[in-house]
Every structure is written in structure tokens, then in C-alpha cells.
């Protein structure tokens, strides 16, 4: 599909916030499949591609991309509203890393030819991307990555392994950080490459997670070749490019909506089991309810900064800590509230209602691990905000 087949987008940023919000909400409410709302686990492409095609036809597949590349061209303010409405309606993630992570990087750093080559098929869903950053020995310490790419003619030859690769089984392509200069300081010898997942020498080994599903994988590279023309940016500049796009992600990752949805689930369980009469439970529930309300107050501070066109400083790390740790505690109290049913798998009978207690508990675990663990975020705050030695 070419970008001329999708409906052309108005200047959304000229809309007032309430009108934009109600248009987005109305579309989600009519177009999103009811059975996929508030998914308890990651959905595979086979479950979500129908929804993705609807988004694409509407011209809304890439809200943050500029309109010239088929996006909605939303500024920070409108983008936050779009994401808030997604979360409010419980819209599940598609394999969206090409849209959310790779797209903005290509738009900023790729050549015109690379943009023409990669952006349209990414938007249409023809190219599904996975991210190759973490390695078995480069997790929180990502800059110590060792997967290596050596130039041979007009191709890079890649050897090594990536891990925690979400959507690796669905993906047609991967964007990857590789070491291209072993003599440089560890952050400075890294390049950013694209490659096809059907290239000879790639082995994908799915990893079964605590939910029992195979959402991510380990990917092995044995003399995998990709064109030098598929490198984005200059050689050895990959780390800088990948880091430059983290700020906005940290604000949106701090949205209180996920926790607010979880609070409704806890309230449903507690009401069914008569726990609101239990003073001990009630106080812990109230602590969490206030924590979530106050998280929203912190989120609003950063959201307003983004809306005014500002870039959050390192203090935005506190937002990720608060949002993810508060949500985790909420899933823990829900589990405890469910009593014996808190150890039952899948949708279980809670006083007559079928509710999934365990999946949110499991799903919330990687939130404090991925994209900079809570401990790494605290290190950042200690050094860069509190100025501790």
C-alpha cells in the first residue's frame, strides 16, 4: 500500500484538546474489538493485525510521525492525549516497535533514500520490526554489548546474540545495536543497523516467560549479512542516536492510566469478596488509591512540560519508578485480596465473576526491569539529580 491510499490527516494540533480527545475516544470505542480490551498478556500479530489495518486505513497507525510520512503529526500535547485514550479504552499493543521506536529514529537520522525505503512498508505493517538491544551479558549495562559487525565489501557480517527480543517470532526485520569498533570507549564503538529476519544465519529461540507465553526470544547471529547501505547514521554513532529518543518515552511510560485500570480491578475483587469492610485491607487499599492519585499529579507536571514543548530532565526517572512500582504493588494487593483464588491460573471464579488475577501480577514484573530497571533509574537520580558522589 502507498501512503496515498490512507485517509489524509487534518492538522490535529490545531484542534482544541477536548475535541481531539472526543474524536479519538469515539474511534476507539467503535473500531476496537471488544474482546481484545484490557488484554491480560501480550497479543500476537495474528490477533491484532485486523485492528492494525483499521488504524492504518484511518491514517492513525503512526500518531507521532509527521504527516508527510503518513503519520498524524501529533505534537507532545496531542500525543499524550492519544496515548491516554488508548490506555483508558484498554487497547492492546500491536508489534509496534517499528512505529514507536524505529520510525522517529529514521525520521531524525536516516537518509532520504532510507526513509523512502523503510518508512512506508513499516507504516503499512508489511515490515514488522523487533528491537535488538539487550544481550545475555549486556542488560542494565547495555553499553557493554558485544555482538559484532565487520565490514566485508558492501555488507556487514554480524556475529553474536540478542535477548529479550519482543515480537521476534512475528518480526520480518530487526533494528540492532552492534559493536563496530572494539578499540573505542564502550559507548563510542556502537553502530545502528537494520537487517532482515529471514537472512541466512539467524536462529530465533523463543523464551517462555512466567505467564507461560512466548512473547520474547533469544536471537543468534552466525555470519548474518546486511547491506552497509542499511546502517542508519554514521558508523559508531548508534548509542547516541538510540539514547536521544528516550525522554518522551519515559513520560508516556509514567502514565497513571494503567494503574487506574488496575485499581478498578482491585475494587471489583474487593467488592465481590466483601473486603471493603475489613479495616486492614481498607487502609492498604486507600494508601494505594492515594498513591495513584498522587502519581497522576506528578505525571501532569511532566505532561505539561512536554505540552509546552519542553524536554524532561533526568528527574523524569522518578516517574517511571513511581508508575511501575505503584502498579506492581496494586497487582500484589489484588492477588492477596483474592486469597486462595490468587494462585489460580487464567480467568477464575471470584464470587461468581470470571477474573484474571495472576496475569496482571506477572505482567507487571518486567515493567520495573525493562527500559532501565528501577535500580538503574535510582542510580540516575542519585547521580544526576541529587548530585551524590
Amino acid at each position: 500500500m502507498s501512503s496515498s491510499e490512507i485517509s489524509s490527516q487534518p492538522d490535529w494540533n490545531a484542534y482544541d484538546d477536548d475535541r481531539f480527545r472526543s474524536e479519538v475516544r469515539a474511534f476507539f470505542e467503535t473500531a476496537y474489538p471488544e474482546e481484545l480490551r484490557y488484554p491480560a498478556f501480550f497479543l500476537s500479530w495474528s490477533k491484532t493485525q485486523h485492528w492494525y489495518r483499521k488504524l492504518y486505513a484511518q491514517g492513525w497507525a503512526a500518531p507521532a510521525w509527521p504527516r508527510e510520512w503518513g503519520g498524524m503529526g501529533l505534537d507532545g500535547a496531542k500525543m499524550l492525549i492519544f496515548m491516554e485514550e488508548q490506555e483508558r479504552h484498554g487497547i492492546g499493543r500491536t508489534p509496534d516497535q517499528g512505529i514507536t521506536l524505529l520510525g522517529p529514529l529514521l525520521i531524525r537520522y536516516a537518509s532520504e533514500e532510507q526513509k523512502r525505503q523503510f518508512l512506508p512498508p513499516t507504516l503499512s505493517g508489511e515490515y514488522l520490526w523487533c528491537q535488538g538491544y539487550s544481550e545475555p551479558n549486556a542488560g542494565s549495562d547495555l553499553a557493554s554489548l558485544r555482538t559484532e559487525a565487520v565490514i566485508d565489501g558492501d555488507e556487514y557480517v554480524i556475529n553474536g546474540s540478542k535477548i529479550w527480543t519482543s515480537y521476534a517470532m512475528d518480526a520480518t526485520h530487526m533494528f540492532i545495536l552492534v559493536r563496530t569498533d572494539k578499540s573505542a570507549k564502550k559507548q563510542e564503538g556502537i553502530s545502528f543497523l537494520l537487517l532482515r529476519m529471514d537472512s541466512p544465519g539467524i536462529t530465533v529461540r523463543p523464551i517462555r516467560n512466567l505467564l507461560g507465553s512466548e512473547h520474547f526470544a533469544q536471537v543468534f547471529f552466525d555470519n548474518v549479512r546486511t547491506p552497509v547501505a542499511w546502517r542508519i547514521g554514521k558508523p559508531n554513532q548508534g548509542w547516541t542516536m538510540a539514547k536521544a529518543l528516550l525522554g518522551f518515552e519515559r513520560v508516556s511510560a509514567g502514565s497513571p492510566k494503567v494503574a487506574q485500570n488496575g485499581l478498578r480491578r482491585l475494587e471489583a475483587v474487593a467488592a465481590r469478596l466483601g473486603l471493603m469492610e475489613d479495616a486492614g485491607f481498607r487502609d492498604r487499599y486507600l494508601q494505594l488509591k492515594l498513591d495513584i492519585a498522587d502519581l497522576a499529579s506528578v505525571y501532569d507536571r511532566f505532561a505539561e512540560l512536554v505540552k509546552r514543548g519542553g524536554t524532561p530532565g533526568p528527574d523524569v526517572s522518578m516517574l517511571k519508578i513511581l508508575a511501575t512500582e505503584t502498579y506492581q504493588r496494586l497487582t500484589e494487593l489484588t492477588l492477596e485480596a483474592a486469597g486462595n483464588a490468587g494462585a489460580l491460573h487464567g480467568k477464575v471464579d471470584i464470587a461468581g465473576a470470571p477474573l484474571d488475577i495472576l496475569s496482571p501480577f506477572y505482567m507487571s514484573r518486567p515493567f520495573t526491569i525493562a527500559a532501565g530497571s528501577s535500580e538503574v533509574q535510582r542510580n540516575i537520580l542519585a547521580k544526576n539529580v541529587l548530585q551524590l558522589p
Partner: protein
Amino acid sequence: MSQEDTNQMLRDAVGGFAARDTSIARVRALRETDPGFDRAVWKKIADAGWTGILVPEKFGGAGLSLPEMAAVLEEFAKTLSPEPLNAVSSLAALTLSGGDNEALQARLLPQIAAGDLIAAVAWQESESGIDPAAIETTAKEAAGGYALSGSKRFAVPFGADAYLVSAKGQGGVIVACVDKSAKGLTVDSELRADGTRVARLKLDNVQVAKADIVASAGAGARALGQAIDQTTILAGAELLGVMSRALEITLDYMRTRVQFDRPIGSFQALQHRAVDLFIQKELSFSVLRDAHIHLAQDADALALWASRVKSRCSEAGMRIGRESIQIHGGIGFTDECDIGLYLKRAMVLSAWLGNGAVHRRRYAALAPALEAA
């Protein structure tokens, strides 16, 4: 001038006061004295205009609102000064101006603004009640006024010139202005953790003329409720000031104190602890900021925001105070080390007007259900 500019100017002015007119040595010297604060310093505070921030202009005040008073109180609280600025210039002044006796307002509010009258609101009777209507003290109609009988606790400050006393009359709660030397009034003090004092009142058939009724039965509960909730938000601002300064002191200590040949601030266990304290401070700041934003648009939500602010700021203030002691180690447990003074002020402010747990429960009763999914 924008509100931000006004607030910054006010903050700078308090900074000048802090450098010139008070010190930790003064704060230490006043501990456990009677009445526990300095009237000469109170006069300087009044000359700076802070006692009249919330007093309407027609009664000699500045006629400003909560955000300006919050800015002053946050900075003022960092100095740990024992002068009862929030209790007198917010709680008493707002109770008076929320009442329905304009002649009394015209008589007393200019004196409060000028620093000539220190009035304490006596509205609490039990250890943790924060409902101004749940009281036992009675007001019986008597010749030309009322006769008050009952007892009050936790009135701030001890040593006030007059007490604004709540009582149950026919048809509702009234508030009466009782002079400290009124016949039938006994005032004792209870010593608080930080060395300041609260008043404990016994009223035995105390006669109050109609002219001294701050709020009649139709207006008393509402006037008190509003004044208490606004003062509660401002107590949150005071707690934010205390916790901010305590955290600064603790971070300075972590940068300079050397053990195992390294500054203790380089140890990750302590770094992460300090980060969690910082996050509590930022939560407190954010809720207060949000309260000001929302109350400017919807004053009806005052009680809800008061409870949100107080439960966060009380718990955060206490936690930062306690953990600051831990991070300081042995020296933190000594009276000679200043950090303990901040913990104690945080304890006093946390308990005053309802602690975190009390406000958590009230929030539950007031909070709207979450927007339906």
C-alpha cells in the same frame, strides 16, 4: 505581576527574614519556654506583611489567596521558627472572615494583620477528631449573649490573646471570641515534640456578648470547616518546607561524611534510600501544586484536596525526618545535631489538623469513584 513573580518575591522576602531575624540558635533557645515564641519577632513578621496575606484589603490585609500564603509558609517553615504564622494568620483569620459578624471582623482582622492580636482557634476536643461539628462544648443562650461550658485541646498557640472557641448552640455550631482573661476560662499548656506549646482550655460558664460571636449557628460549621481545610493545605506547604530542608541537610551530609575511605553518599544502598526520599518530596510538591490548580477552578473540592495534601505531606514529612536520622547515624540521635529539630517539627505538623491516617480515611469518604471504564 504574575502569580509566579509574586510568589518568588514573597519567597525572597522570607529568605531575607531567615538570614536576618532568625536562626537555629534562636529556635533552640525558645524550646520549652513560655509561651514558646517571641512577640518581637512576631512584630517583624507582621511588618513584612505575612500576617495579613489572607486578610481582605478592606480590613488592612493584602487580600491574597492560598498559593501566596503557601509560598511564604513553605519558606518560613524551613527556618523552624516557632512563631504561629499558619495558626493565627490562616486558621484564625480565615475563621473570622468566614463568619457572619462584620463588625467583629472590622475590629479584629486589622489587629491580626498588624500583628497586634494573636488569636488561637479552639475547635478540637478529642485526640483525632477533625469534624468541627463533633463537639461536646455547649453554648447556652444567656442575657445578651451566650454562656460557654466544656473543654478544648490542641489550640495553637498557647499564650494567645484571645481564643476563637467552637460550641454547640441551638441550631448548630457557633464560634465565639473569648478573651484570655475571661471569667471562667482556664488555659493550660501541653508541650509538643518540637518544644512549642498547645493550649488546653476549660470553659466553665464563660459569658460571651453577642458582639463577640464570630459565627452564628447558621454559619459556624461552614466557616470553621473552610478555614480548617485551607489551613490544612497550608500545613502541607509547611511540611514541604521542612522536608525539603531536612533532605538538603541529609544530602550534604552524605556528600561530606567519609567512612570506609569514601563519602557515604557513594554507597548505593544509601543513594537509593535518598532517591526514595526525594520522590516522596516530589510527590508532596506535585499534590500541592495540583491542589492550587484545581482549587482555582473548583473551590467545592476543598475538603478532598485538603485530605489528599495532608495525607501525602504528613507521611512524606515523617518519613524524610525519620530516615534522615538513620542516614546521619549516631550523631542524628543527639540533641546537638540539627536534623532532629526537623524530624520533631515534621511530627508536630503531621499530627496537627489530622495526621496522614485520619486524612486517608476522610479522603475515602469524600473521593469520587474512578471514572467508569
